[in-house]
């Protein structure tokens, strides 16, 4: 568990916030550029000194300005991966990986190298790595220093779609297999949807809200902050069948009655695997219960929980309950009034399979 309560003036910007990161899983620190994410990470890592406040990691005080305590960065046991990989140009990949490695971590070396898929790079020099490879090496280097927590500062920025997807897979595998808690800085809701268990929303130097990722995605009031266009829901499901002939995978949402299924493009996972599904609000529609089904639209029984309070503009966001999970939908204001939608109403949530891309489905 990491607890920070810090304030620091940086020019005409003030970082003044508290942040709690649990001792397990992936916590995302979300905010636009200039919201103070990187400054906060630097304070936690010991690369900056807060004007006042304290930071505690487990039962160790890293900073306490009142008691004049400050642990230097090399004694904090925090692994940091920066936006740029910051590999040492005068060491080989192997040398970089071993840089902070204590004797006790030697046994982990081979496993981690394999987990990150960097075995074939060991004797190369950092200058000859691609962006994605360099970041994987940087993550490995940080992990081999046996950190109590891993801080990732926008590790995916600047990578193209495929590399980003690949690195996301690696990070998720790390979080699952190594048990090291991760604090992950990002301004991209898609990355957060794919990786995080919890989210803290940072705005103008202050954590405005924090909580489990699905709840945070489901909060309509945070819409303007998380970016309206990308507003989406995260849903837990599992694979129930593959249809090889049609190249489709059928998913069942957790909490839904037997037989209610979603179809998505063929996935890699096995039947029974858990998946996390990101559905954009603009791809979800609603219809009355008796509306007949259509071949390429999946219909799920849903209850209308909440209607957004927008009074201007063409669109309104509504929150649906599908088997206990929250699903956002964006409708026109016209539809909401003409359909006479009200909370508690039973509806169909309608989804077209083609709007769910492979990147939106993560096999856990």
């Amino acid at each position, binding site marked *: 568990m990491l607890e920070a309560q810090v304030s620091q003036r940086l020019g005409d910007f003030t970082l003044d916030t508290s942040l709690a990161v649990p001792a397990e899983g992936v916590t995302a620190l979300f905010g636009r550029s200039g919201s103070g994410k990187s400054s906060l990470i630097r304070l936690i*890592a*010991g*690369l900056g000194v807060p004007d006042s406040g304290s930071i505690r990691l487990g039962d160790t005080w890293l900073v306490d300005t009142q008691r004049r305590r400050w642990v*230097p*960065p*090399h*004694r*904090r*046991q*925090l*692994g*940091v991966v*920066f936006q*740029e*990989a*910051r*590999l*040492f*140009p*005068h060491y080989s990949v192997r040398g970089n990986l071993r*840089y*902070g490695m*204590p004797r006790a971590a030697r046994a982990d070396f081979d496993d981690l190298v394999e987990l990150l898929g960097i075995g074939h790079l060991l004797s190369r*020099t*950092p*200058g*000859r*790595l691609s962006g994605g490879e*360099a970041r994987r090496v940087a993550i490995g*280097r*940080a992990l081999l*220093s046996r950190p109590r927590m891993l801080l990732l500062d926008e590790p995916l920025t600047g990578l193209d779609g495929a590399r980003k997807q690949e690195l996301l897979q690696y990070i998720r595998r790390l979080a699952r297999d190594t048990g090291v808690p991760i604090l992950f800085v990002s301004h991209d809701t898609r990355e957060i949807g794919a990786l995080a268990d919890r989210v803290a929303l940072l705005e103008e130097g202050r954590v405005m809200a924090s909580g489990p990722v699905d709840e945070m995605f489901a909060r309509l009031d945070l819409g303007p902050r998380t970016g309206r266009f990308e507003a989406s829901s995260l849903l837990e499901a599992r694979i129930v069948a593959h249809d090889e002939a049609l190249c489709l995978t059928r998913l069942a949402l957790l909490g839904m009655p037997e037989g209610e299924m979603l179809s998505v493009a063929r996935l890699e996972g096995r039947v029974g695997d858990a998946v996390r599904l990101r559905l954009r609000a603009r791809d979800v529609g609603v219809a009355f219960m008796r509306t007949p089904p259509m071949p390429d639209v999946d219909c799920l029984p849903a209850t209308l929980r909440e209607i957004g309070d927008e009074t201007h503009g063409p669109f309104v966001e509504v929150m649906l309950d599908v088997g206990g999970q929250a699903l956002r939908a964006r409708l026109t204001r016209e539809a909401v009034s003409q359909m006479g939608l009200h909370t508690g109403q039973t509806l169909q949530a309608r989804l077209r399979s083609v709007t769910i891309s492979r990147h939106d489905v993560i096999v856990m």
Partner: protein
Amino acid sequence: MLTPLEWEALALSLRISGVALAAILLPGIAVAYLLARFDFPGKTLLDGILHLPLVLPPVVVGYLLLVSLGRQGPLGQWLNEHLGVSLPFTWEGAAVAGGVMAFPLLVRAVRLSLESVDRKLEEAARTLGASRWKTFLTVTLPLILPGILTGGVLAFARSLSEFGATITFASNIPGETRTLPLALYSLVQTPGQEAAAARLCVISVIVALIALVASEWLARRARRRLEGRHA
């Protein structure tokens, strides 16, 4: 190939410059680090004083050395009483003169390469558990090695060619302080020694060329090790 006198002057020159370089190398790196990485009151003044030997006439530097390190000088007296060392008119004194004249060149070169080191790499090392000192030895030092090589060769060459401060502080004693430039000067002053002077001149040029080529080669090798590897 070389006459005993030429050998003597050449060997003396190399010894004096080598000792001078060895003596200023670590302080030079330390001062360069201080100037490149820290702000403190009097920094500009220190910087100015360090650069004085570059702009003052060398004879002035030699005179100041004589005043401070001579038998009557405050530092010289102390050295003589406590360590039994007397520097003026000895080869050690010539090394001091060469070192003082070469110091600013070394500091400048090292400082320049320190300022071009990516501080983010040092931060990364710190987060990986390296203390300040370990970070310096394992990250900063290897990265500034080309600058240290260049500065070192420059400083060596500068003290090889040192004349004014040396003749003022250490005089021109055959076998003790008569380095290549002083020997050449003596020959030029002696009628009928034009041929010998010309030979010494050629020797000086060859030594200087070797130093320059060696420095270029070393620096290029060191740079190639780092080149294109900034990920």
